[in-house]
């Protein structure tokens, strides 16, 4: 016996969870609960006070809190229930009923359980720590993830340091280079291990170039000095195998090192539920409905794969909410048994979704993915059962910018109809210009 019963529980009240809730409600789901661990809805958007959000979704430039507010208002207006300051600590599958059992806790209700027909995983991601990069040296204070620094400056009005080196050119690091500069800190440089940036081009221009902050590509931190507070870092150039080149070391005196070296989807709960995970994305494997390997459990946003733009998170979550509503209301449609596996190769690292049941896809389906290297003047080629579906010329593709293709149902059905088999294959790959 659980303490509560719900049709749909959404874990996480950030951009993904909010959009999923709004969409599920719009589609007719009534008994929804959003569980948020922080003191307010909005997730990481609350500390992203810079603008540039919403260009795709709202055709205007919003700050993070403004963007979140658009969705929070819809949640409030739709009277969708949510719990704040509530942490989900366990997630299990009830084999008998197919219900998902959520264990959560907060100060008001203590530890309690909820059984839900459907669950949407929207827990977001966290930042990769120094250890994951194995940077040698001492372990003083003054080394922060870029997101921690952002929290300090934007949420608490506190300065985590004054003289800053940033390692990694992920978007948060780029944004923080500008932010720290605005607040009077001196940002000496941004070092990036790869020969290309990990962030969006627009952020390099607006956050580094405009402030004269050098971006050192193919460079990394090779030593950290300071027993107590950070005293400085040594940066060296790296060769094509990402190994430091002796003799290129330069010491930068600084009191702060910010790390912006990638994000990791936060999937501890998904693991407890036995959701099948993708080693490349760190998120779940999902089908065209964004449903994981566990029936009735959907995933969206950065817990599924790390996005560059919140607009895409909202769009993806909208779809997860819609499909979760259909699942609850028994409207998922009839499957005809055809399955398309999406294979990514030759520079394409993964795709979301990775499996498509054509009978259950919408008229169009957006497939998102990333390439593993920087490519210039190449084609993105997509094949279905060996037949070329599309060929998109690309001036530049980089790991820092998510790519997407749109599958058209009518065209997909036309090709698979020519095949006897039920199993089909889409291949997405980088190719030389035709």
């Amino acid at each position, binding site marked *: 016996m659980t303490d509560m019963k719900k049709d749909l529980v959404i874990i996480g009240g950030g951009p993904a969870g909010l959009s999923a809730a709004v969409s599920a409600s719009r589609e007719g789901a009534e008994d929804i609960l959003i569980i948020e*661990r922080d003191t307010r809805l909005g997730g990481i958007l609350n500390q992203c006070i810079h603008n540039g959000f919403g260009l795709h979704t709202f055709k205007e430039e919003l700050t993070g809190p403004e963007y979140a507010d658009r969705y929070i208002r819809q949640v409030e207006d739709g009277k969708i229930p949510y719990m704040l*300051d509530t*942490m989900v*600590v366990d997630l299990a599958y009830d084999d008998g009923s197919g219900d998902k059992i959520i*264990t959560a*806790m*907060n*100060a*008001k209700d*203590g*530890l309690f359980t909820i059984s839900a027909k459907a669950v949407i995983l929207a827990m977001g991601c*966290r*930042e990769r*720590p*120094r*250890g*994951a990069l*194995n940077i*040698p*040296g*001492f*372990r*003083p*204070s*003054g080394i*922060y*993830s870029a*997101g*921690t620094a952002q*929290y*300090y*400056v934007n949420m*608490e*009005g*506190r*300065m*985590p*340091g*004054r003289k800053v080196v940033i390692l990694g050119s992920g978007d948060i690091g780029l944004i923080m280079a500008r932010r720290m500069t605005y*607040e*009077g*800190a001196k940002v000496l440089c941004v070092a990036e291990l790869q020969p290309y940036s990990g962030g969006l081009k627009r952020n390099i221009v607006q956050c580094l170039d405009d402030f004269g902050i050098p971006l050192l590509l193919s460079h990394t931190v*090779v*030593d*950290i000095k300071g*027993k*107590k*507070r950070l005293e400085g870092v040594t940066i060296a150039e790296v060769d094509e195998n990402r190994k*430091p080149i002796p003799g290129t070391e330069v010491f930068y005196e600084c*009191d702060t090192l910010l790390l912006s070296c990638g994000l*990791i989807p*936060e999937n*501890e709960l998904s*693991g407890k539920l036995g959701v099948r995970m993708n080693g490349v994305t760190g998120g779940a494997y999902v089908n065209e409905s964004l449903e994981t390997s566990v029936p009735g459990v959907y995933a969206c946003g950065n817990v599924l794969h790390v996005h560059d733009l919140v607009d895409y998170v909202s769009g993806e979550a909208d779809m997860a909410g819609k499909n979760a509503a259909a699942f609850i209301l028994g409207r998922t449609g009839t499957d005809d048994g055809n399955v398309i596996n999406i294979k990514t190769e030759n520079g394409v690292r993964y795709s979301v979704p990775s499996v498509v049941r054509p009978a259950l896809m919408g008229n169009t389906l957006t497939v998102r993915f990333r390439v593993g290297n920087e490519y210039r003047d190449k084609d993105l080629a997509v094949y279905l059962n060996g037949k070329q579906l599309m060929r998109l010329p690309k001036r530049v593709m980089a790991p820092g910018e998510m790519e997407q293709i749109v599958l058209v149902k009518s065209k997909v059905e036309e090709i698979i109809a020519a095949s006897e088999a039920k199993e089909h294959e889409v291949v997405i790959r980088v190719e030389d210009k035709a």
Partner: protein
Amino acid sequence: MTDVAVIGAGVTGSAVARELSRYDLEIVVLEKESDVCEGTSKANSGIVHSGYDAKPGTYKARFNVEGNRLIHELSKELDFPFKENGSLVLALEEDGRAGLEELLERGRKNGVPGLRIVERDELKKMEPNVSDSAVCALYAPTGGVVCPFNMNIALAENAADNGVTFRFNTEVTSIEKKNDEEGRGYYRIETTGGHVDARIVVNAAGVYADVFHNMVSGDRIHITPRKGQYCLMDKTAGGIVSHTLFQLPTKLGKGVLVTPTVHGNLMAGPTADDVDDKEDTSTTAAGLDTVLSRGALSVVSMPRMTITSFAGLRAHEDGGDFIIGEVKDAPGFIDAAGIESPGLTAAPAIGVYIAGLIRDILKPCEKEDFIGTRKGIPSMALADEEERKALIEADPAYSHVICRCELVTEGEIRNAITRTLGATTVDGVKRRTRAGMGRCQAGFCLARTIPILAELLGKSEEEITKSGAGSYYINGNIKDEL
């Protein structure tokens, strides 16, 4: 006049203090850092060795085997995490068999129970992910893993509960032998926080023990800091092995161990490089490479899931054995020096032995109200459903998660700060509760832990440090310098 001054609040000093606190004595522990467990005790393998490694007849052999036995009991009495997971010394080539038999014989002489050699088939059953090149292994069922922080903290807390005074940020600068008006000898210890006069001095100063020994004795000792580097991996990698896997030393070197930690992470290390600087706990690229590549020899596939790396300094004395006991030309000055591996395991036994020496010198009465047990901080992560409910009911702060990776709540952090010898730094909270020890390494919880420390210590957030003076985090407010 203090009866006993212990220099160093590491695991050895704390074990001595805890055993001495059974007696009606005035005891002070002098520690240069801001917390217990700040030197060698915090950066080691966390292994409870069974005792086959040390040469028979040495202090290392004796105190290792005794210490192993004591930790089994002590972990229950003082409530710190310990697991007897057993250890395996792998012979990675056929000619290693002779080496294992030598260790087996040595272990038997040292009184290690249950040792035997397991052949490949059995080994593979015990450790499915063991390297294919492992030919056979020495199995030591009494080997274990312990939380080195909480073992040290538990010993110190219990000592403090029994009246021992701990003085932190108190660095000993000189020690002088003196006589009082009645002609009784004592030591004057000058520190950065004034002087302490004590009848007995226990030198448990880790890599600095030679410095203090040589202040009072002409019979000089010499300690070399021997750096050991480690990589700690994510908990999802923790299950690849269940025993502690040592490597039999080969022509390639001494070997690196691969072990689950008591908390379920995977750890590999250490390297062994002598350094000059007693404060050089920096890791090096070459060292971390060695850890991962040598460690990889023990398992089928080494996970690339490092979440943090660190280095510790072992106190290696030239003679190679522990130096334990009263210094011949300095009566009342008792060494616990050269405490390198298996020092963590040996510490409780060294504590009992040295407390015995002091009892024989000072002939104190035993306390009637000695508190033999200590309760650790409750852990939400380890608690079952009923325990969790009860904790939250008693204090709703146990429902407020601060460290998401390790599921550490505000209740646990408050407990860690307000208890006996409570945490005063972020590292202190981390070592007591595991907040910040997970896969994001405090990216999220740091900014939530600092305000709790500030509130409970009555300090500003600017004054909260990572590990004592100078290691501040926050540097004023935004707009300050505009």
